[in-house]
């Protein structure tokens, strides 16, 4: 009986100890330490900050069905006096949202219900959405913000831009992204030579570092077969055929050729091709590299393309220049003589493998080339890659990290996948885009925002509506032919490389616009993207300006500026003394370089525009750095009168 009693006694004591551990653990909870720490911190501050009562604190966000207890330890979130304190007490950086309104985990992710550091960060078993690393925080903005430019979220905006430009939606299901214009491959057999095509398919960026075409890491054999397959497509859309080269280009004498090249060089410069096309990396960014174009495309194709770009590639945003037949031949001759890749091997005769068509077609399908490029007789590939519309909620156990050896988190997976898609397995079909590290991070941010969470409708900032503006009639034809929307925006349509023309006629005088088409000098000559000279006829210019005068105006811009010399004199005082405009603008070659010179302002701008611009520059051009000086009407009138007197 004795040993049994002893056992009973020992077990009883053991149970008592076990029972005592729990209240003890309760008493020594982690957050209590932080709260007493906070109270002693604020007691030592020069400012008066209220200490907190010890106890769990939480933010309950009813509309999001969330309870966040982060504020149990992050006690200084709303206390400006703690902006320099160490975490967890530091003030929250200024953002547009209030912690009481949205809570913490809606943006930061992590486990809001937790009251322990490790659990709240959420890198624990059974918690699928751990806290977002700082570099990826803007992902959460995307949950509600569907608009084009999210204020204060540069990384997200960059990521979305890259997703659009890289045409991720060509292969992946991605809501809110549309397929970009990418040249269809009709007639490619008449356009490029095989040597170039094989090299291009193997390493696109070796030819044009700025190209959006990714590297599919093809083998020599694959690239050769695919090239043979592609080169068998020799017909152009809508049964267009290449015009023969003019005699000036086929059999010129040496002297004649030199003259032709010289004329072409002049016209090439006047047309400002480099506003859009980079040449060996220098120049614009919206169009393809031209530095070695003569070794890429055939002369006949080049001649036909410059003559009528949209005939060979419908939808391309290249203007049809109004070159005379001689000028056109000159430009082509100049490009043929100047933009040659001297390192490229001479195209050798080549007989394709007998099964090249079937094999090439299989490769075209395997690598989902049709996700981006149209090809006659091939259906556009629909979303051959994984669905990315809820990638931000992907669970860790669903991801195969392979032998990559990277940190096992969703952000690091996405970033690594974008940088080096093939580290997760040899069979991965995703090509290498050659993103920089910050670009990969930005894209990962934009993707992580696709959580598929249900968001209350009143929180959603809807996508910027697509403008349905489509000019009709003669003006519409010209806008299409000249690809104006490739650089300009009109009533919300177009790509903003140059200026928004929606109020152009309210801003600039008719005579000035007409003159500008003839000699498009730049207001700021340092810019690369300057207006090209399209060599328009007077009739075409009249059509364009007539339309602008009726459509690109606003009644609100009407304003009569006094023309008496006293007003101008007051304005001069305001210009030089009161507001010091000369620190940024030049008059008579004196003043700063930040803004455009104002000498001949009266020739260019309408009085109404000047007045309203002075009153509220951002109202007319959001984001301009011209300061809003809160001028009174009288001051704006006087200043406008002064500027208009400078003729």
């Amino acid at each position: 009986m004795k040993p049994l009693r002893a056992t009973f006694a020992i077990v009883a004591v053991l149970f008592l100890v076990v029972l005592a551990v729990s209240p003890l653990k309760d008493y020594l909870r982690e957050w209590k330490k932080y709260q007493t720490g906070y109270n002693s911190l604020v007691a030592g501050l020069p400012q008066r900050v209220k200490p907190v009562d010890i106890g769990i604190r939480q933010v309950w966000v009813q509309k999001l069905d969330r309870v966040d207890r982060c504020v149990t330890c992050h006690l200084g979130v709303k206390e400006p006096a703690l902006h320099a304190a160490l975490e967890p007490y530091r003030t929250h950086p200024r953002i547009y949202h209030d912690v009481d309104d949205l809570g913490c985990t809606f943006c930061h992710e992590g486990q809001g219900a937790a009251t322990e550091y490790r659990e709240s960060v959420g890198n624990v078993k059974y918690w699928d959405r751990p806290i977002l690393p700082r570099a990826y925080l803007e992902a959460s903005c995307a949950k509600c913000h569907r608009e084009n430019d999210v204020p204060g979220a540069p990384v997200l905006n960059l990521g979305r831009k890259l997703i659009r430009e890289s045409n991720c939606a060509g292969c992946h299901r991605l809501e809110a992204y549309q397929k970009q214009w990418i040249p269809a491959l009709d007639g490619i057999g008449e356009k490029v030579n095989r040597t170039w095509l094989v090299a291009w398919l193997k390493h696109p960026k070796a030819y044009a570092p700025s190209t959006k075409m990714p590297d599919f890491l093809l083998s020599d054999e694959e690239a050769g077969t695919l090239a043979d397959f592609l080169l068998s497509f020799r017909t152009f859309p809508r049964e267009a055929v290449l015009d023969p080269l003019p005699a000036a280009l086929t059999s010129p004498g040496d002297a004649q050729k030199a003259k032709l090249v010289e004329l072409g060089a002049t016209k090439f410069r006047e047309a400002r091709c480099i506003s859009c096309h980079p040449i060996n990396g220098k120049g614009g960014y919206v169009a393809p590299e031209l530095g070695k174009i003569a070794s890429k495309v055939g002369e006949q194709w080049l001649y036909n393309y410059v003559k009528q770009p949209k005939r060979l590639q419908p939808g391309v945003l290249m203007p049809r220049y109004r070159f005379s037949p001689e000028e056109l031949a000159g430009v082509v001759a100049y490009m043929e003589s100047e933009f040659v890749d001297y390192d490229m091997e001479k195209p050798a005769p080549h007989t394709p493998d007998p099964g090249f068509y079937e094999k090439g077609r299989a490769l075209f399908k395997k690598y989902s080339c049709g996700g981006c490029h149209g090809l006659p007789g091939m259906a556009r590939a629909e979303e051959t890659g994984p669905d990315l519309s809820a990638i931000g909620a992907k669970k860790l156990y669903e991801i195969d990290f392979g032998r990559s050896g990277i940190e096992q988190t969703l952000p690091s997976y996405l970033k690594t996948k974008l940088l080096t898609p093939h580290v997760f397995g040899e069979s991965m079909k995703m090509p290498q885009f050659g993103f920089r590290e910050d670009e990969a991070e930005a894209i990962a941010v934009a993707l992580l925002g696709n959580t598929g969470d249900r968001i209350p409708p009143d929180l959603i900032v809807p996508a910027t509506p697509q403008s349905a503006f489509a000019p009709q009639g003669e003006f519409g034809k010209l806008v299409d032919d000249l690809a104006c929307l490739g650089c300009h925006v009109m009533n919300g349509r177009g790509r903003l490389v140059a200026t928004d023309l929606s109020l152009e006629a309210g801003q600039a005088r008719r005579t000035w616009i007409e003159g500008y088409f003839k000699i498009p000098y730049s207001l700021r000559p340092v810019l690369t993207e300057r207006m090209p000279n399209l060599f328009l006829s007077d009739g075409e210019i009249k059509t364009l300006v007539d339309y602008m005068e009726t459509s690109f105006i606003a009644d609100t811009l009407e304003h009569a500026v006094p023309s008496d010399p006293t007003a101008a004199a007051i304005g001069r005082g305001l210009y030089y003394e009161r507001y010091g405009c000369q620190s940024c603008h030049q008059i008579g070659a004196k003043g700063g370089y930040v803004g455009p010179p104002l000498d001949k302002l009266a020739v260019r701008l309408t009085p109404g525009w000047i007045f309203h611009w002075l009153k509220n520059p951002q109202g007319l051009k959001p984001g301009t750095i011209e300061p809003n000086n809160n001028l009174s009407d009288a001051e704006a009138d006087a200043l406008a009168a002064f500027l208009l007197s400078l003729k």
Partner: protein
Amino acid sequence: MRETFRAITRSQAWRSVFRHGLPLSNRTRAEAVFYNFFLHVHPAKVRRRSLKFTYTWGLGGLSAGLFIVLVASGALLMLYYRPSVQQAYGDMKDLQFVVSSGQFLRNMHRWAAHAMVAMVFLHMLRVFYTGSYRPPKEFNWVIGVVLFVFTVLLSYTGYLLPWDQLAYWGISVGTNMARSVPFGLGERISFLLLGGNIVGENALVRFYVLHCFVLPVAAMVLMGIHFWRVRKDGGV
């Protein structure tokens, strides 16, 4: 001291509870057993060899003890837990992070439940090997088997209540197994258990009621009969 003790035992209040005198004679000793609710299940006589610890290993008593632990900790958990799809998981997280000793309560309930299943099973094994199911105790063996089934069912119904992925799929698998009962009964059983065709709000409430009321009460009634029979048959 002795005077005080005597005064207490002679008081009206004391004598209304303990109607017999101090167990000094055989008669009063027998009365003490007969009139006491807790002692009356004891057998009139016990064989010496069945008192040996290594004969029973105390497994039945341990099972009963764990049942008491489970009832006590379960009652406390019921104070914080609400069987609704919206709140169940959050309530569990609150128990973990906010309620004083909440995590301890959950763990105690969970481990005691696991231990009880093991103990009841071992108890059955012991009864089998000592041949204690033989007449006249065959009916009590049957009750014991039913109690074992109740223990397992209690364990299973409790599985759904945290309303996490493990619970959801555990119950999905379980009710799908019930679905394969032949003669068209499977669908009906599954429907009855879930209160519908999917694991949802109705299933949660049903499992909650089964877990916290129906099964424990039924188990307690059967345990009463079980213990009574054990004692009357000369066991401990």
